[in-house]
């Protein structure tokens, strides 16, 4: 199970970084979302991976660590708010600046040979 989770995190990070480097606001927003998914799964797995165990101490012989679950919950809420803000900001920038490049202009592209 650990191997699969690790591969999944790696894949998500790979896609996230690739999309962020696209330098267009919509792919960047998607990339950041993928990156934060990867981080969330990573945080979750930092409490060690177990299946079918309660996150409560004392009800059974073994239990899963509840702290990372609480951390992930907080991280998800914050990440959601930040993504919403980024999307609104990107739309505003596209309308006012007339481009979806993260630099706010297409100049670099034209100068390239």
């Amino acid at each position, binding site marked *: 199970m650990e191997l699969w989770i690790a591969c999944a995190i790696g894949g998500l990070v790979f896609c996230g970084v690739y999309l*962020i480097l696209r330098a267009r606001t919509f792919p960047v927003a998607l990339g950041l979302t993928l*990156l934060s998914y990867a*981080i*969330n799964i990573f*945080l979750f797995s930092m409490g060690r991976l177990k299946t079918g165990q309660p996150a409560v101490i004392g009800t059974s012989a073994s239990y899963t660590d509840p702290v990372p679950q609480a951390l992930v919950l*907080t991280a998800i809420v914050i990440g959601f708010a930040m993504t919403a803000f980024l999307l609104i900001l990107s739309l505003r920038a596209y309308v006012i600046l007339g481009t979806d490049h993260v630099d706010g202009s297409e100049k670099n592209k034209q100068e390239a040979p």
Partner: protein
Amino acid sequence: MSHLIVVPFILPLMIGALLSWVKDERISLQRNISLAASLALLVVALLLLSMAEQGGIQVYSMGNWHAPFGIVLVLDRLSALLLATTAMLALWVNFYALAGDDQRGRNFHALFQFQLAGINGAFLTGDLFNLFVCFEILLIASYALLLHGLGAERLRSAVHYVILNLVGSSLFLLGAGLFYGVAGTLNMADLARFVAQAQGDERYLLQAAGWVLLLVFGLKAAFLPLHFWLPRAYASATAPVAALFAIMTKVGLYAILRMTTLVFGGQTGAAAGFGLDVLFVIALLTMMLGALGAFAAGTLHSMLAYLVLVSVGTLLAGISMGSEAALTASLYYLLHSTWGIAGLFLLADLIAKQRGKLKGIFRTGAPLLTPARMGALFFVGAVSTAGLPPFSGFVGKLSLLQAAQGMQQGFLWVTVLLASLVVLLALSRAGSVLFWQHTGAIDEHARFSTPAFVSAVALIGSGVLLVIFAEPVLAFCQASAQQLLQSELYLQQLAGE
């Protein structure tokens, strides 16, 4: 356990929430509440300062859950000092905004208070994950504040700023997660104990987590090569926002200081030989680059933004030297640079308002409406920032230079003096273009606002006060540095609670 400790975090948070319910049409009500809250914050911060002065380190357990299981706020001399610095800055910036800048967009006062809540929370928390949450509070408020007043240039810099900080937040979680995965705790004092005892593979994992966090804090503090967002963002922000942001880079530096003196403060385990040498080199490079940037800048605002980089480099140099004398000098320099740069940002805005379309661009233009007042204040601010006697910059830089030892001495002296020279040249060029070279008549839209000018005078004038009261201030800074370096006391205090 005094409940006063939690007030600097709770008060702005509640006032911010309250202010977001007050409609923007009732601006005078908003202004009164906001100014009263900033005043109250200053009073609380000063009370906490005297509390920290008297009785060691104070711990506040949220909901009475004790560390390391509960969340704690910790008040030591360093956090009290930074709270007071922030509160003083916030009061004058708030006062400046009342001159009209708060009406250039919506919800300025609510966002301002949320930003303060985040900053104060970051200074108080004794828990890594809560540090993350406070960072996010101050960041999301800063995103909106950076956009205050809108306009193409602000949007451009905000897109960069927001995306970079979102990546930074992800990395922060990665670092915090690694720490939890290895040590099973997020309380900074508990982490420190674990780090000092770590063996084998755990050592490398903990150091990796430490480096990831240093990267994140470096992004906030804007040292080389993570500084690219800063000049553009600070130069394009509205004046009160840019002035408030003067404390933002210090939040990153504060976190670095906590990392190097507390979490990796020991001499054994994973803490041995962590990071300081690398940080020293980075600090010198940042200082030099900031000075050159200031020299090359084409507008007053972007020159000031590069001066922020110079101060970040200087502070980081002090932190990375790590001795008691160096930390004392850094803390003193932190007070000086925060208030001084913030005051200059406010002054730059006042100057720009009198130069018509040219604003802060360094080009011959219309004469100023009130050249004598502006010029005199600019002169004081410039002399203080460049580090010439008799103002506070001189005292700060001198004590930093005296603190250097061994190999570091040569490198630090050369870099600091060279950077100061370049900054001095840049500031003199700016001053002569702005105040001496002019053509034509005074711009007809030029105006002068006394309350706004008073705020700038108060912040830049702090450079004079810091010299007059240099002895008690330096004594407090030294006591803070001592307390920081005796991290065993911090650990005992948390264990005892």
